[in-house]
């Protein structure tokens, strides 16, 4: 029995460490992240320390979670809780459902690995318009790869969904023509062009 414990437990721990969901963040003591926002040059603070401006590319020390705040004059500051999915609790508890506690306002999202976009709200923008704009940008950025694929094919579920939800004032064909003109190799530029 003892040899089984000696053998099985380390194997389980190693297997847990190499779960696909954790593989990209468990090596090293720091982690590269990128933060961009709709306002260029917005201040980026991590754990209260000013670390740069958007678009920000840098490394942060690995820890259970870190609070990033993005702020610019004339805009409401936005905070992101950067949470690490790897922690002993998560391995022991074997979660079915991931915790999604950050970005609950819908104004920031991770559209690529460790890459965040923050949509800052200006004082002149209405709440409804801001939410609509955030939803549209989030949709376009997170589905950028699939949307460009569908644009090349000329049709697809996501394109139809995008059109139905946000561009009902124009025909699908004219929406398609505009969307095809958007730059396709950069998710942020693509989303901004679509949101237009």
């Amino acid at each position: 029995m003892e040899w089984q414990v000696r053998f099985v437990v380390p194997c389980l721990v190693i297997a847990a460490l190499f779960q696909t969901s954790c593989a990209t963040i468990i090596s090293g003591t720091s982690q590269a992240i990128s933060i961009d926002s709709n306002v260029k040059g917005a201040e980026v603070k991590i754990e209260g320390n000013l670390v740069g401006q958007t678009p920000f590319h840098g490394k942060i020390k690995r820890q259970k979670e870190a609070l990033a705040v993005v702020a610019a004059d004339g805009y409401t500051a936005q905070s992101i809780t950067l949470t690490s999915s790897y922690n002993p609790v998560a391995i022991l508890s074997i979660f079915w459902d991931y915790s999604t506690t950050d970005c609950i306002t819908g104004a920031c999202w991770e559209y690529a690995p460790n890459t965040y976009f923050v949509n800052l709200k200006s004082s002149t923008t209405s709440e409804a318009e801001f939410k609509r704009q955030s939803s549209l940008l989030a949709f376009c950025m997170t589905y950028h790869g699939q949307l460009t694929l569908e644009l090349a094919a000329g049709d697809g579920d996501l394109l139809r969904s995008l059109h139905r939800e946000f561009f009902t004032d124009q025909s699908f064909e004219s929406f398609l023509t505009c969307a095809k003109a958007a730059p396709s190799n950069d998710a942020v530029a693509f989303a901004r062009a679509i949101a237009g």
Partner: protein
Amino acid sequence: MATRYTVGCGVALWALSQAAAAQGCVEVAPFKSVFLVFAEEQAESLVSGFGHIFVCLPNLPTSSVQDLLAAPAVNFGADTSRLGQGMWVGQYKLQACHELVRKNTHFDQRRLTFFELPYTEPELKHLREDLCSRLAHTYSYDFFRHNCGHYIAEWLLANNNASSSILYFTPREALATITCQRPPLRCFTIPSDLETLEQALSHADERTVYQVRRGLNTPSVLREINDPVLQLLAIRVAESRSTFAEYSALESLQADILSSPGGPEAAQAIIATRADMSAADLPNWLQEGEGPALGVQVIQQADAGDTGLRLSAEAGLRDFGTPPRATRTLRDIRFLAADVEMYSHQVHSDLVLASVSVVRDLRRIGGGLSSGFSLGRSDLPDPLAISGLYASTWLGASSRFEFGWLGIRAVAILDDLGRTPDLGVALGLTFDTLCDTGSFHGEVTDVPGHGLGLLLRQRQSCTRTSSLVADATCDPDGSITLGLGVQFRF
């Protein structure tokens, strides 16, 4: 990586707040239909090993996947940072359906199946009001029982207590419970990127398959592949596993391929493949899935005063991970159960090897065929001093009704113990109920010249894994045997 799964809060929240204010329930907009979504188990990931369910709530008449993506969704998730009375705190959360779809099909590489559930207008109204009150509370969360499956079932089945007394309750079991009480109107699927790639690779040569597999780990290799369809599909899969630097490179590679001469045709082929794969019939695994079981019974032969033990092992049906197919073929014939039973009486002993192979159409309404055989040996001590073999085989047909299965079977019997003809033919009627909390099996067999044989077997589920089993058997010779025991199902 949890943050990876936290893509922007989507269309749902905006749509919800727009339409809900006037209805008294400010969080949730009125919805027209309910789509239960099941994300299949994914063996590679521990956290995905038991499936996941959530609900999409479109506010427009919905006809396809594309209509659902922008709809609001209800997800039950755990907050790992907070402790409650159980292990952790869980909450119903409103998210965009596309957010959950992307997380499951792209990041987790899991197939999604959407089931439209039938609800009337008043029921939809009640569901919405109920959801509003649930959104305001937190709930005790534990992995084995009070999980997404439990809470989504509780909400959709109007506070039913289907899972209150069980030891564990997986999302797949929650799905089975819900769809049993609310038979789906239709269903369709969204294949994972990996599944779509595997589909395309099934026609590729060995070298290409090797290149693709290598490219999934080393994205730069993907440039060397000659087939743009495979390149694009591999990019979709590789993206979900990449670092940011790799991600950017993959996006550029995709843009290059799409702008090349064969790019648009390749994109069209992929969209068409995914559309073909999304057509689905109701999955077979929704119905009657059962795991293997072990049982032990105390038996009493009433007329002879003989008591004994019966041990049984049963291999049941469990279609974990079997993808549903749009068209049914001979491969869909299921091996439902195999029994091995051993009787050990005080007076005599029997060994019965009963392999029961049942072919059933697992659709909700339908019919099926059954066949099987049993083989046993009995040794009776002095003064009878008889020992011999007995065997039977049968072929039957059964039909499924709302209340259960009704079947007829022809039985050929071989028995050299003198209890029945040495070789005879009998006719049997069978009846099986369908019930979540237990099952009942009844069987009447007419053995010409010897009278009627009767078997009644009742299983009552105590927990999801254990059942009480009570048997009553009356042989054609009038001997009655009663049995009582437990069965553990895995």
